């Protein structure tokens, strides 16, 4: 059986019809994985998942291990509660980013199950195809970014968004990735810098790095031709390839509330694009 798919845009995102995520076996999981490699974002509507079923589905992907999130308030570190309401000072996922790119082996795929979209509408999520972001750079810039490395620091959001300096002795993941990595499954070249975690480029001066990074970040923000915009309904699960995408959670629904739970499958260590 082939998956019944409906594309959101030519380069990223598909809705997958007719699948109950409680009933996914190894064969179906392999098909989903193949489709995810190609489309990067899959949207499953009208699901009915317990936390256990959500985790069971996620274990079918990546290394089979789930990310344990230090900020989870759900009572289960493998379930990250994503909650925004009228008292929120910021929202999870504001601004374009790749989740925890500061790890040597970042999350392979995430599955966000939204049970409560904002009651007045809004709260869409945008995704960007970062292989296409790379492909749409001009040739001279491609040649330049291929030679560069960037530092990704888990402390960056703490310092810049929350305004909290890490306590002495606390360590956050920090890793130097190539700016252009090769996707572990498809081998595609992926532009791998993001505003959420990338602090600086190495091998160039600080000043050069600041402006080069800004140019690359703006390339992502100003390029809707590599984006899709996903509209949530209650009980929609969206699965995304975390290595080859960035995402941006739109907060246009204040003072309404939005609630979902994310489970993430760990991935392998990233390697350089040859």
């Amino acid at each position: 059986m082939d998956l019944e798919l409906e594309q959101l845009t030519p380069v990223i995102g598909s809705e997958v019809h007719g699948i109950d995520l409680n009933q996914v076996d190894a064969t179906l999981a392999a098909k989903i994985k193949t489709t995810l490699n190609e489309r990067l974002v899959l949207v499953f509507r009208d699901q009915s998942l317990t936390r256990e079923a959500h985790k069971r589905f996620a274990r079918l992907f990546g290394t089979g291990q789930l990310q344990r999130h230090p900020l989870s308030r759900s009572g289960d570190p493998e379930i990250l509660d994503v909650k925004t309401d009228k008292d929120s000072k910021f929202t999870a996922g504001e601004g374009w980013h790749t989740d925890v790119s500061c790890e040597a082996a970042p999350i392979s795929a995430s599955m966000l199950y939204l049970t409560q979209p904002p009651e007045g509408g809004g709260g869409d999520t945008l995704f960007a195809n970062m292989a296409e972001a790379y492909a749409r750079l001009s040739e001279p810039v491609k040649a330049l970014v291929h030679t560069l490395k960037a530092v990704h620091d888990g402390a960056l959001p703490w310092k810049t968004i929350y305004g909290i300096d890490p306590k002495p002795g606390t360590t956050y993941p920090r890793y130097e990735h190539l700016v252009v990595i090769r996707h572990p499954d498809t081998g595609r070249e992926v532009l791998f810098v993001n505003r959420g975690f990338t602090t600086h480029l190495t091998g160039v001066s600080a000043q050069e790095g600041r402006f080069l990074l800004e140019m690359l970040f703006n390339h992502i923000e100003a390029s809707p031709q590599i984006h899709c915009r996903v509209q949530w309904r209650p009980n929609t699960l969206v699965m995304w390839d975390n290595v080859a995408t960035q995402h941006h959670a739109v907060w246009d629904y204040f003072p309404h509330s939005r609630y979902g739970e994310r489970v993430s499958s760990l991935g392998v260590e990233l390697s350089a694009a040859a």
Partner: protein
Amino acid sequence: MPQTIQRKSETPAVVRASTLQNSIKVEQLTCSIGAELSNVSLAVAAVDETLLAEIRSLLLKHRVLFFRNQDITRAEHVAFARRFGELEDHPVAGSDPDHPGLVRIYKSLDSKKEHYENAFHCDATWRDCPPFGCVLRCVETPEVGGDTIWVNMVAAYEKLPDSIKARIEGLRAKHSIEHTFGAAMPLEARAKLAAQYPAAEHPVVRTHPETGEKILFVCGFASHFVNYHTPQNVRYGQDFAIEANNLMNYLISQAEIPEYQVRFRWRRNSVAFWDNRCTQHYAVQDYWPAVRQMERAGIIGDKPY
């Protein structure tokens, strides 16, 4: 960034019982901008004062209106748009020979890749009087791809930090076709275009002539500020280049903020009607090579103030 939004249940008074004849149904597409109107034909609306008044007030409220299944003739398309003003031709894209003012934006399998699309802009701000709005109809489209994004530039202004609002008060900018459409032309053709359409000067913050709202009015056509170089702004020459450029880039990039946007997927006979005074748009060219045919009636507007 807290925002004031209107709940769907509270909007809008114009949703009438569907049993009424000519009743327009309204569905908001995002919290910020855009509504899909159904149960209305633009051919009928063109000759119905009540429907026209309703559409006009919905346009002011939602800034871009979408209509599906508008299987109307070119003459009906033009007739609807003409109810809002005179139409204008475009110096680069040609018009339909039998229907002046109906600009053809046609892509064929031979069209160049990513030519004029993929930039946020307000239509024709290089004119002294940019369009009031446009009525764009989809004649042919690929099954996937070619979406258009609209941006609410009233919200973009309203949400600016107060410090930025203070800095841009009274600022004016030049808008140039030469720097945009002309950039891809040979030098001689580019110079000719510039001579024919000299750059226009507009306020950076314009006022909506019907609602009085303030609008952030710089886009990709804006090339530079004309009155930034004052003793207050510029201590040394270097300030002028860096500060003015940074400020211009910052203002232009506001249209990229997804919180102000709606992304619309076209089908054959879909129509979008936007208020060009308070929105920007971005035609996503992600379908090359494919046949895509759009027809646009651009309605002449007022001089921005």
